């Protein structure tokens, strides 16, 4: 980020993009009067580069790239405390969700680890219809080059019958493939 950011009036493109994000999130960012209640109650704000309140402020000022590039949106755990407490009814958790998806669409992801974990997870669902924990962790560790992460937990999980080395498969796997393809298609409209 540059030391000085010039803030000017929103361009037509920016305005359209913010409107689109608001529609997807089902919320209105201009309702926010910056009281900070969301950020005081946020259990992960201690680790964020911009607090939830600041993320909304960035959007209000039209600094969309800064908001999409914030690490905060990937640290948010979607615990919904902010949305529950907002005195103005801003659905901040849904906005965070929308920002993550927009960042993904633009290939502009500040925390690749979370995005890779999500990808690994959904790949197993697409393939088998169920999530397959051992496969996800293996793929995640390989793709993030953390080969021995949580390795000490793998065997005890299997010993307890809590993780299977093989995926659980549903019968309607072709339905799954169709759902994934159609969701992608319907999202483009």
């Amino acid at each position, binding site marked *: 980020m540059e030391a000085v950011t010039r803030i000017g009036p929103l361009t037509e493109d920016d305005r359209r993009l913010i409107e689109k994000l608001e529609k997807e999130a089902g919320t209105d960012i201009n309702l926010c009067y910056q009281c900070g209640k969301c950020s005081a109650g946020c259990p992960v704000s201690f680790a964020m580069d911009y607090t939830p309140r600041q993320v909304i402020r960035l959007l209000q000022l039209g600094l969309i790239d800064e908001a999409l590039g914030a690490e905060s949106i990937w640290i948010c755990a979607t615990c*919904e405390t902010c949305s529950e407490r907002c005195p103005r009814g801003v659905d901040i958790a849904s906005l965070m969700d929308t920002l993550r998806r927009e960042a993904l669409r633009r290939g502009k992801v500040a925390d690749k680890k*979370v995005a890779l974990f*999500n990808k690994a997870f*959904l790949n197993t669902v697409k393939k088998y219809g169920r999530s397959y924990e051992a496969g996800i962790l293996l793929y995640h560790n390989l793709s993030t080059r953390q080969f021995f992460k949580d390795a000490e937990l793998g065997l005890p999980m299997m010993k307890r019958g809590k993780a299977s080395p093989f995926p659980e498969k549903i019968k309607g796997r072709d339905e799954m493939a169709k759902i994934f393809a159609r969701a992608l298609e319907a*999202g483009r409209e």
Partner: protein
Amino acid sequence: MKLAYYPGCSLDGSAVEYGLSTERVARILGVELKEIDDWNCCGATAGHNTDKLLSLALPARNLALAEKEGLDVLAPCAACYNRFKATEHAVREDAGLKARIEYIIDMSYSASNNTISVLEWIKRLGIDNLKAKVTNSLKGMKAACYYGCLLVRPSSHTGFDDPENPQSMDEIIKALGAETVDWAYKTECCGAALATSRPEIGGKMIYEILQNVKEAGAECIVTACPLCMMNLDMRQGQVEKRFSQGFNIPVYYVTELVAVACGDDPKTVGIHKHFVEAVSYLKGLPAKAKAMEEEEAKAKPAAKTKRAEGEKPSDNSEDIQKKIDAILKGLEKNPEKVVSKLIEDGEKVNILADVIKNDEKKRVKLAEVMAQDKEKAIKVAEALIVGEMKKREKSSN
């Protein structure tokens, strides 16, 4: 009662005990669970982080299958429950979304059925009904009921309990004979997948929850979420190492405790599969309960003899006189503070303080009853206040 049952991936894997115990609770409480045929994963956090339509379509396929049979859905996993509620909400509120979801899953779905959580389910069957089924009381247990995020939030979707200070799990655990503590982190987030993706952040969140459990004086944690269980139980060892602090706090699923209190062996519902050893705390409860009962029995006769001795003047009268003197001193020095032990209402406290400041007889009388019988003292205090208020009313007329 017959419900469609959605175990979700966790109850088949890392939360196998949650599945076993949920099925046992259904049997015990006489509920027929019909597992949704060929159900699929709800997409969890990965789904809604990646694609909005996909995150609604994956739950919708399961919900539509249950709707076809006209059944409400029991979803014990808090994360699945949250995704199902979000899907119901979207389909009910947004006709455009409903049409797109139906197109994606290639089935009709209008959210005419409802998803319920385990807490709602057990509460709906009746706390008294549950109490009647308890054969092995959990008396002696001191539990911190941990709701986490997704069972109670967003309340516009879930709505069955208070989002800041929920009580449903506490009611269930108390019905089993255990004691529950008030604590500050009951709806704090455990960090969910952050423990995997960003352990430096997730670990700290888990540590703070465990720390608060300890500070509140609880000896175990009760949860209704597989991810909370994984973080608090499986990762407790990692957190202990990182923060150089021993916790050794057993964690239970609410359904495990219901089954055990209703007569199941802890092993039947898989409690021996936990990472933090959790069977021996349960095995130790009867001895603790016995000690508590003996303590209570001892306290009772002692109270009785005290009262009996109080009737005929004996050595005890000296003690009581001392107590009266001490209270009297307090009433003279700081009447508001002392009477606020009897009366909560601030205005009434002030009225009573005025009365006894100006009337020594009434002051002594109040000190005498306060020293011997608190309930009687409250009555006397109230009578004094009523009298004074009437007096003031008259003089103002």
